[in-house]
């Protein structure tokens, strides 16, 4: 072995190895995604005074819309802070003339309401942006929007709204207040309040708390979906969605709001089987592309000519089992299973 250079007189491989491992551990501790010191520090810095103030206004707005009243405890809960902090925030907001105590309850002033609705607008537009213009997973939308709502300036929010085509609803079905603070509530009722056998349309999914929301996302429920209630017990709410039976606990189901199919009952037909169930060599007719397929992903399917009424034929599967090649309008296109599952085919035997 060649000797170590003179400047490394104390070299010993075991020490070097230990030092190397220790530095790797240190780097991981600092920079590990989401749990590293840097990520924790960034999260901590976000909880600044302005963020607390804005979150408090947002909470007051939401409570006002739902017709409840705000207590120190509910505010502390919403801010995830102590009651002392919540009291300090209230005092600060009162000094700024954004809220006032009237008839023993805390109320928003006109100025405070405008401010709070602006934050809600930024939040919901950002969620819409994440849904349409990025590939961020559905379960992460809310948390990211919680962060971004405090950073977006009014001009940035409006530019984003324009690039999205001035959306009216966020991806959960919540109305986005206009810049003037106007909006129409979704007007749905919790799923549990409808009788068994009723066909209803999902109008809103509550995205907090995260653990419940994740269960709803996992079942593939989305605003606009038509579902049929099949059974209700103390322990579960059962329903048919996209032709498949599903079950949720009453606590989770309470976070889904729906309304009756009064306005246009024509959309009542449940979607047929998904494209991946088509065996190679068989042909089908596209019925619809699920609303869960959004933004660039949806446009790509449309670009390829996958439209309601298009004949589509499964040609062959990759030796790996995925993707599958489909013949659409005389061209051969490979789609992965998690894309193809959004395409529904007309049930066999129907012609319409």
């Amino acid at each position, binding site marked *: *072995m*060649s*000797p*170590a250079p003179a*400047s490394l007189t104390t*070299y*010993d*491989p*075991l020490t*070097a*190895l230990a030092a*190397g491992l220790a530095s*790797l551990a240190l780097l991981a501790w600092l920079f590990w*995604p989401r749990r590293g010191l840097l990520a924790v520090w960034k999260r901590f810095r976000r909880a600044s005074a302005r963020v607390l103030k804005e979150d408090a206004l947002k909470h007051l707005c939401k409570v006002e819309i739902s017709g409840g009243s705000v207590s120190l405890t509910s505010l502390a809960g919403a801010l995830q802070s102590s009651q002392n902090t919540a009291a300090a925030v209230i005092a600060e907001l009162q000094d700024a003339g954004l809220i006032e105590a009237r008839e023993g309850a805390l109320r928003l002033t006109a100025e405070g309401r405008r401010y709070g609705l602006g934050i809600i607008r930024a939040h919901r537009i950002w969620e819409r942006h*994440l849904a349409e*213009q*990025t*590939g*961020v*997973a559905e379960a*992460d939308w809310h948390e990211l929007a919680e962060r971004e709502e405090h950073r977006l300036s009014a001009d940035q929010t409006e530019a984003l709204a324009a690039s999205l*085509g001035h*959306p*009216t*609803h966020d991806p959960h*079905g919540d*109305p986005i207040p*206009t810049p003037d603070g*106007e*909006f*129409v509530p979704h007007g749905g009722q919790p799923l549990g309040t409808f009788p068994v056998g009723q066909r209803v349309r999902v109008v809103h999914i509550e995205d907090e708390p995260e653990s419940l929301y994740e269960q709803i996302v996992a079942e593939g429920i989305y*605003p*606009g979906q038509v579902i049929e209630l099949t059974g209700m017990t103390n322990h579960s709410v059962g329903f048919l969605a996209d032709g498949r039976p599903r079950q949720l606990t009453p606590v989770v189901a309470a976070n889904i709001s729906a309304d009756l199919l009064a*306005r246009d009952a024509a959309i009542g037909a449940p979607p047929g089987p998904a494209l991946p169930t088509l065996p190679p060599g068989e042909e089908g007719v596209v019925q619809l*592309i699920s*609303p869960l397929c959004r*933004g*660039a*992903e949806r*446009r*790509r399917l*449309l670009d390829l*000519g996958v*439209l*309601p*009424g*298009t004949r589509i034929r499964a*040609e*062959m599967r*990759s*030796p*790996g089992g*995925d*993707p599958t*090649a489909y013949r659409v*309008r005389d061209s*051969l*296109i*490979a789609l*992965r299973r998690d894309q193809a599952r959004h395409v529904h085919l007309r049930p066999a035997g129907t012609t319409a």
Partner: protein
Amino acid sequence: MNRSTTTDVDRLLQRARDLRWQVGGSLHDHMAEAIYAEAARVADRAVTRPGQQPRFDWDRTLDRIVTSRLWGFPLMLLLFASVFWITIVGANFPSRWLASLLVDTLHPALKQLAAGLGSPGWLSGLLLDGAYLATAWVVSVMLPPMAIFFPLFTMLEDFGYLPRVAFNLDRLFQRAGAHGKQSLSMMMGFGCNAAGVVATRIIDSPRERLIAMITNNFALCNGRWPTQILIASIFIGATAPPVLAGLVSAAAVVGVALFGVVLSLVTSWGLSRTVLRGAVSTFSLELPPYRPPRLLQTLYTSLIDRTLYVLWRAIVFAAPAGVVIWLVANVSFGGSSLAEHIIRWLDPVGFLIGLNGVILLAYIIAIPANEIVIPTVLMLTVLTARLTGVGEGTGVMFELEDANHTRTLLLAGGWTVLTGVNLMLFSLLHNPCSTTIYTIYRESGSVKWTVVAALLPLAMGLVATFFVAQVWRLVAGFG
């Protein structure tokens, strides 16, 4: 404007605002879908198709075979192995011919001419030993394999086979968060990383394209194969019995290349789950009909678009590097050259990662092209070990005909088996050459991702060689 119209307009606007809430969020989707559906309807009415072709469908039959579970992978391996074999064997002769013309014949002739014209030594050193020689070296090592590999590859592409490869391999890349077409840009990377990075244009999903660009460097490019083969035969092959030496060193080189493929998948996986989480991703892969390859057009496009394009960029970067290489060896102060000062300073770092200062300096100044790393290493070794009787003079890169002589020279420079192993690792895992870095910048348009693509493999290389060196010394005994 009179009063009543104003209120009418207001009422109309108010009504429009109310209706906006009623039509809901999916209006845009419905509109887009209706436009597409209408376009499809018009096309169906206007376009007539000839009646049912009596077809024994060649395309379909061929597709069944090349994507079948039984034949898909063996056919693929066979085709690519042949492409590589033809490239390596075919490039041998023209490479040697170019080297003997440009390096062995033209270089001394030019030197003589310069001396005859009475130009000062430093000028001919700078321009001929530096700029000219580096360029000549890059051209003679780089041009022949690329001129063979790229047309062959383009032919497979033109025929329509390559999309089927992406189709077959997509599952593997999907698990790594990447696109099946990355297999093609990676394959291209075995020819040249800069060309591989350009080839990522076939990936239309932004996130997957970025992943393919950043990980392309893990495909062992044609400028690094000679280094791998030389070092493997000198240090790894020599540890085996003479009968097996060739086989063992070949296995070592293939092993390094496969390790690169594994690393590119692992890195893709890591990138798609951390920094590139949430970037837009849309998969689609069109499998076009098979077409007879157009030979002339293939030759033209692969030579102009790929070979000459890459070669030109390499030359642009190689000439100044040659000047720098000559300068560090010839500018001296305090009794030793600049190169020796830097090498002494780099030696401790080099030692810690099982290499040495000479290799590190060679990688720094030979950043424009991996092809000139070994010639630079040899020149610097002669310089620092103050050997006499070998080489072409201070600051003049050279290579030795006989691997045994190279071995003797490197051993005199203090090399061990560990140095060889780690050089092979480091040759796979270091920053891409400047041509590739520049290409990544041009293609991605982002300084940030260019920096990531340049530094990520370097960091991985430093970590890997460091740990190999420490464990090796612990196991083999140090001192």
